[in-house]
């Protein structure tokens, strides 16, 4: 009885060895296997030198984003059965520097996240710590909830044509996160985020191609967040022009 197999073409790169290339592996085909299962099979039983990131294998930790046949995917949610008869080409996420094999450099992404002040700036900074919950109605929660669902998998950065062109573009996930906090009824940090969001490399750089929302595995709709932000940013701009004394530090 011959076992059904499928072929993987995996991008290989070691900075301390020969240049990049592709390596092929024949792996068992199972109807319920995802691409990550196939990579784990290779790693465990065929070639221990293959490097990639993964953990939760249930689409929430955001580690295992890669290009599968040229599309950014969470490999824990990309089923081999959708790529029959193969081969399946697996590459590191585009628009990121490659460290090794399927591992990309996340420094730029992490500093962009950091740059948007992604935390609540309290309205009243009373000392002594919190004693009671803020009220927030389900409707107020709904205003930002969708934009709080980002798992930082970076598929949107791989899909975004602007990120590919302009290194400094803050990018879909970080801008959606900024908008998430701006829309939170508990937050007073809009001014603090303004300069980053509305700099040249902020929301205005987005040309609304919408690829980010297409590839988002969590339906965050960063393109929608950016469009919303553009609108409110434009209004803020006129408000600043007309009432400059109202601007806080």
């Amino acid at each position, binding site marked *: 009885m011959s076992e059904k197999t499928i072929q993987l073409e995996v991008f290989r790169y*070691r*900075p*301390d*060895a020969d240049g990049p290339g592709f390596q092929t592996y024949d792996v068992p085909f199972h109807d*319920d296997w995802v691409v990550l299962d196939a990579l784990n099979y290779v*790693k*465990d*039983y065929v*070639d*221990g*030198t293959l*490097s*990639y*990131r993964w*953990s*939760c*294998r*249930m*689409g*929430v*930790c*955001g*580690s295992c984003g890669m290009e599968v046949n040229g599309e950014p995917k969470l490999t824990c*949610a990309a089923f081999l059965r959708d790529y029959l008869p193969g081969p399946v080409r697996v590459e590191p996420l585009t628009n990121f520097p490659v*460290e*090794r*094999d399927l*591992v990309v450099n*996340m420094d730029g992404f*992490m500093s962009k*996240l*950091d740059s948007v*002040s*992604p*935390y*609540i700036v*309290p309205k009243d900074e009373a000392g002594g*710590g*919190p*004693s*009671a*919950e*803020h*009220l*927030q*109605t*389900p409707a*107020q*929660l709904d205003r930002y*909830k969708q934009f*709080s*669902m*980002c*798992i*930082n998998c970076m598929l949107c950065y791989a899909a975004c044509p602007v990120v590919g062109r302009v290194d400094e573009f803050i990018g879909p996930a970080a801008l959606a*996160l900024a908008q998430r*906090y701006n829309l*939170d009824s*508990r*937050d007073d940090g809009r001014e603090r985020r303004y300069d980053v969001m509305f700099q040249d490399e902020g929301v205005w750089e987005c040309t609304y191609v919408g690829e980010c929302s297409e590839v988002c595995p969590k339906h965050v709709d960063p393109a929608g967040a950016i469009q919303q932000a553009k609108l409110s940013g434009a209004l803020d701009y006129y408000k600043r022009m007309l009432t400059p004394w109202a601007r806080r530090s």
Partner: protein
Amino acid sequence: MNEVRHDIIIIGAGGAGLRAAMAVVETNPDLSVGLVSKVYPMRSHTVAAEGGMAAVIKPNDDRQHHIYDTISGSDWLADQDAVELFVDEAPRELIQLEHWGCPWSREDSGQVAVRPFGGMQIERTWYAADKTGFHVLHTLFQTSLQFSQIRRYDEFFVTKLLVADGRCQGCVALELRTGELHVLRAAAVIVCTGGFGRIFPFTTNGAIKTGDGLALAYRAGAALEDMEFVQYHPTGLPGTGILITEASRGEGGILLNTEGRRYLQDYDLGAPLDIHDPRHPQNRSMELGPRDRLSQAFMHEQAAGRTFQGKFGDYVELDVRHLGEERIESRIPFVRELALNYAGIDPIVEPIPVRPVVHYTMGGIDTDVHGATALPGLYAAGECACVSINGANRLGSNSLTELVVFGARAGRHAAAAAAGLELGGGAEIDRQAAAERERLAAWRARPTVDDRVASIRDDMTTAMEAGAGIFRDEASLAACCGTLRGLRARADRVHLHDDSPVYNTELVSALELDGMIDVAEAVAHAARQRTESRGSHQRTDFAARDDANFLTHSLAYRTDDGPRIAYKDVVITHWPPAARVYGAANDADGQA
């Protein structure tokens, strides 16, 4: 070797580590924190917690209820002084998360909503739909970004704790990107590395849950406490082991065998109410019984031939169809997403196949209520620690709360202890760091053998499931202990194929395995020596709880010949050991 100095080093940047880091800064803003993690913080497994987080906040609830639910859930093995602190500090910590922006689900009034979970008299589980852990982790991580005192070391794998002058003074860490070793020195180290579900083959735990911090502390001389207690969650997806949250039962989901019977009624868990009865689901009853009892009931149903047979083993059905699409989408959308993606089942129209799956490890590094271990300078918090509030069986939705309550306590205490501390022992630290560099270099120079890291790991997980699963006995545990000794010898010889310094994930896997075998041995030996049944530890050859001999915590100490097991008493304050009663009969209980 590159050497860095901080006041506090925290190993692990999940819920407990992030909360600890911020507690250090809150306590003393002049202190610097090195936050070290083998992954980026938002990849930590806190992210996968689903159902919610317990704290008393509603007027119909009371601290006595939460304390009693936790202690009875633990089968009286929890330390009651720790449980009291935990329950009293929980509301404040959850409100703190609320102030930091956690998107808690809300009532129409705008107040935080709560839902029932297993083993609770009163519903007290705060939730953010069914992605609570995800939201808590991202809230903590994002909030932590504003503190310049917290310096992160992302993707650094800690290989050794440094101990000199009788005090833990830092660690050696491997930078995965470069392969360089770093010496991170500090006046105190807090271990927050999570549990060790990955020593078993079928688990809800992500790949990173390899118990690294337990192995580090164990090798530094600290005790591992209550390691024999491993929680099987009753509802995982067959095959992948992906968790289907208890919130699905808190919202009214039911468990059915092949006869369509709600079989839990046959296991002293109460009588079922009709699913359309407004009083369904009843707290502390039937599907809202404790996890250990539900997983054990599955095993009995399986033995009786009343479970379904599937490609990935036997299963029962979790039916949530009667909740309707709207409630499923608003309360447990992730359950639907996971069932659709990974089981090809839409829970709106079909029951979900589920079976017990290793989920949580009650045991961990022995600490006091401040997170301090017996080794000065070494602290632990979160799933890797054992305070103990969980005893022989953790109550659902206490684990996320434990992360923030005891993460904060450990951070505060370590900060107070570390401020202004003058450390000696520099020469000894240098000697240990050099020895550690040689250990890793020797590893890379091992001769080729016909063995693989993954093969040894497979044999270890198989041995744990066969020998130390839901039901255990002397023969199964003796065999397991023997197998693990043999695996230790194989792990000491295994050779690496990857010689690159850059992201050598094979080396990381080997280091993880090396630690996991120590941790697995502690589990198997502690289980073998506890000749009683309590909570999640069920001995078929000693079926009854034995308070006369085993109202004690086990403590495993490392020796070169395997674990040495000692015991210490359980702390009882106001709740003397009693029978665990679930179902309608529990109504009179809990008012101690």
